[in-house]
């Protein structure tokens, strides 16, 4: 009985074979690999040795491992600054994930995520900002909200002592260009 159950157990979803799996892979595992390959093929990557100076516009997700100076605009897409990426630019995107270094202002309509060892020197405008423990950040954070005011939010003085304050719904940030911070 137990053996029969083992025999019908699906092979996908629970384990993922390592890259370059042996020839004994099942059809499900092969399709996983195919999907991953397809995703990797669709993901645009600016390699380590690439240096771009100027304006970068796009309508697909982008990963930058090289150097970019100027302006980056991916308003409906995700921009990932890889661990080797070095950016000196104003950035506008739907979401920005930083694992490398960014010098310049970052505006995202959804989220800015500075991961461990990621670094941002500049002002961030985004409704959600996540900064990991080992990340570096210097600048200001502005999480815009509905109507640009915070009058609807409950004041802390109204808090009943449970230490929780209700959060107002954030609104997508407007891609207002701000001048780069003056370096003190």
């Amino acid at each position: 009985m137990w053996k029969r159950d083992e025999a019908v157990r699906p092979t996908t979803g629970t384990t993922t074979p390592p890259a370059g799996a042996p020839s004994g892979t099942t059809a499900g595992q092969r399709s996983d690999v195919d999907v991953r390959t397809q995703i990797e093929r669709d993901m645009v990557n600016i390699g380590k040795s690439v240096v771009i100076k100027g304006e970068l516009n796009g309508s697909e997700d982008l990963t930058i491992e090289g150097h970019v100076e100027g302006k980056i605009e991916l308003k409906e897409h995700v921009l990932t600054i890889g661990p080797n990426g070095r950016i000196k630019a104003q950035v506008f995107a739907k979401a920005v994930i930083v694992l490398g270094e960014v010098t310049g202002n970052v505006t995202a309509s959804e989220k800015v995520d500075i991961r461990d060892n990621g670094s941002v020197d500049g002002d961030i405008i985004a409704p959600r900002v996540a900064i990991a423990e080992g990340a570096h950040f210097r600048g200001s954070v502005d999480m815009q909200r509905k109507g640009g005011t915070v009058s609807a939010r409950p004041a802390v003085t109204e808090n009943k002592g449970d230490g929780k304050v209700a959060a107002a719904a954030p609104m997508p940030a407007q891609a207002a260009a701000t001048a780069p911070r003056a370096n003190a």
Partner: protein
Amino acid sequence: MSGSGTSRSLTDLFSRFGARRVEEAEKAAEPAPEQDLVFPTKALRKFLSCLTARESPVLLDLGPVVGSNVSFFGEQLGCKIIVEDLYADVERHLRRDALDTLPEFFGKRFPQDDGTVDGILCWDVLDYLDREAAQVLASQLTRLLRPDGALLGFFGTAQTRELHYTKYVVVDDTNLRHRPYPATRGRQGILLNREIIRMFEGLRVSDSFLLKMNLREILFRKPGPA
């Protein structure tokens, strides 16, 4: 014979239970690892109420960036947060052996206009500075603060030899988590109350609390227009 044997074994049994109880009590009494201490704060709530009295308040945080603090002040309270890690400045000057230039550096450190900040989280940075640098910094912070604005500062009340800075993580409006991280130089003496008050000339002490953590927390307010 057998009776004494029984009593001996019972004594052994009780003593074992007793010992275990003592061990358990000792374990319970052990302080939490220093890495992750939560301590109550009385001034933070008042500081927050000063901030939330304004629309879109501007908050200046003088400590290292803490992701959860950014979420707390930015997402929950709607603050615009300016992070200026002065502990990193102190470290950088120490490494360059240029501590004597810190007062001049602090004099030009903040590009913001006068009276443009609603709240300042000063934490305990003044404890790590020499008097001259501390005075220049205090004057700059007083300049930046808007009338009716608030400044929250922590000041050590006991001299320690520990070489660490502290990240203050807001747990809620009455508790802070304190997370030490390495420093090249420890606290530089203890500031007396009157010295602190004199340093922040132009601000008035709204509240002052002595904490169990060998810290005094002081909430300063800048007097509003008459």
